[in-house]
């Protein structure tokens, strides 16, 4: 099952598949990818996991994710794509 929720030049393409929510921010002008991802993380029904399809490693996103208690890791992707898996970690993990 795959349902596209949003597809525009500011927020990218957002859809939900069997493994959870995905956002494709490839081709967006910086810093729109970062804003789109963080905006999505603020949505109440996004759950605890999000897969990001990016065209570059979003270094500046990481401190913002940490600030919100989210963790990330790079996962295998097609050539030319940087794919990240984000999950809501224990917010206190950063303060341990």
């Amino acid at each position, binding site marked *: 099952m795959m349902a596209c929720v949003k597809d525009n030049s*500011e927020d990218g393409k957002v859809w939900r598949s069997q493994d959870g929510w995905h956002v494709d921010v490839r*081709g967006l*002008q*910086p*810093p*729109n990818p*970062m*804003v789109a991802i*963080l*905006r999505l993380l*603020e949505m109440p029904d996004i759950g605890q996991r999000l897969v990001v399809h990016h*065209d*570059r*490693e979003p*270094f*500046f996103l*990481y*401190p*913002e994710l*940490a*600030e919100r208690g989210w*963790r*990330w*890791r*790079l*996962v*295998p*992707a*097609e*050539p*030319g*794509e*940087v*794919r990240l898996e984000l999950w809501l970690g224990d917010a206190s*993990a*950063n*303060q*341990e």
Partner: protein
Amino acid sequence: MMIVDPSQNAKGRLLPPDIPFRFFATALFFHILAWVVLFLQSKDAGGLSWPMLSALHLITLGVLAMTAAGASFQLLPVATKRGVRAEGLCRLVYWLLVAGVALFTGSLVHELPGLAALGGGLAALALFGMAILLIDNLMGVEDMPVATGHAWAAALSLLTVEVMGGILALNLAFGFLENRGNLVLAHGILALFGFMGMLAQGFSTILLPMFALAPAPSEKLARIALFCNALGLLCAVVGALLEVRPLLVAGGLLGILGMAVLGWSLLAVYKKRLRKRTGFFFLPIWTGLAMGPLAILCGLAALFDLFANAGVLFLWVSVAGWLLTFLMGVLQRIMPFLASMHSVTAMGRTPLLSQLMAEGWAKAHFALHLTAVISVGAGLVVESPLAVRLGAAAGLLGALAMSAYGLELFKRVRRFKRDGI
């Protein structure tokens, strides 16, 4: 086919942290030194005396160019997805720039033209290396037309500034120019509004929305701003070289228009920001941006002799009011970002931005810096060495506060790495 090792796709990796941070730390040192020179030499601060030139170049080359080099080496590859191909050249640029700035500004204080020419030459070589790295990174980048357009204008301005600066440095030693005034003015306009100004405005289209978590500014407005700024720059430089006042006026008006359009587009996206509480850190950035048009107005006042010493005020507001205020504001935000990114542990933990930023030192710096800009500016206009000295003292305390901000950041990162807090 899926790439099994995900890092193979993550192009545009970060440089080793010692590269950007060595530029930033040295910029903070030259920042202190600039105010010390101005404080000690304030009796000679009227007009473009050699000590005044030394203080100005400590800011322009020692602080602005040094910070711009560190920031662009690190940020441009992240934005363009093209890694820096010659890390060694980054380090060479650093050492040449440090040696060049130290020799050039020290020789100016002691009025040693031969050594000043040598120092200027070393600094020129460093900036040439920087221009090569910038151009190499920008070649073939097709997305991000606004930011890269500004960066191209900055890189081409830098190459031209190189030639002009080299001639002026040689003229210090050999005195072959009959009228160096035109070249000094063109060099100043191109260095401040071409090289530094374009870089600052280009980066601001990405960094400001990023700090506020706002969308990118309107590409149409940003293109209009770039066009106005570039055309204005061309008019002003040609007008300065050929002594054509209408061209200089047209350049100034186009520059004001370009800055106003860019400022408007940034303000528009700032209102749509995701981060509702931006805290103190935007105040220096907005203040710096607002002083850009003010600096040009001072320049126009100088063209029409509206008040005494308007030309020196133009230079001061451009360097200390506009660029230095803006850049220090950006540095206060960008240093914690980079420190956080470079401190990710094997367990995927990173220090929080909010824990790295020592806001008290940043506030102290801004209050003292603003006092210094106003007091020195007033002192230059009314030719009061006391006002310049008092302003320089405030600036020196502000620079020390800024260094304390950087030092506190370093201590907090080290504590995180050691204790995990």
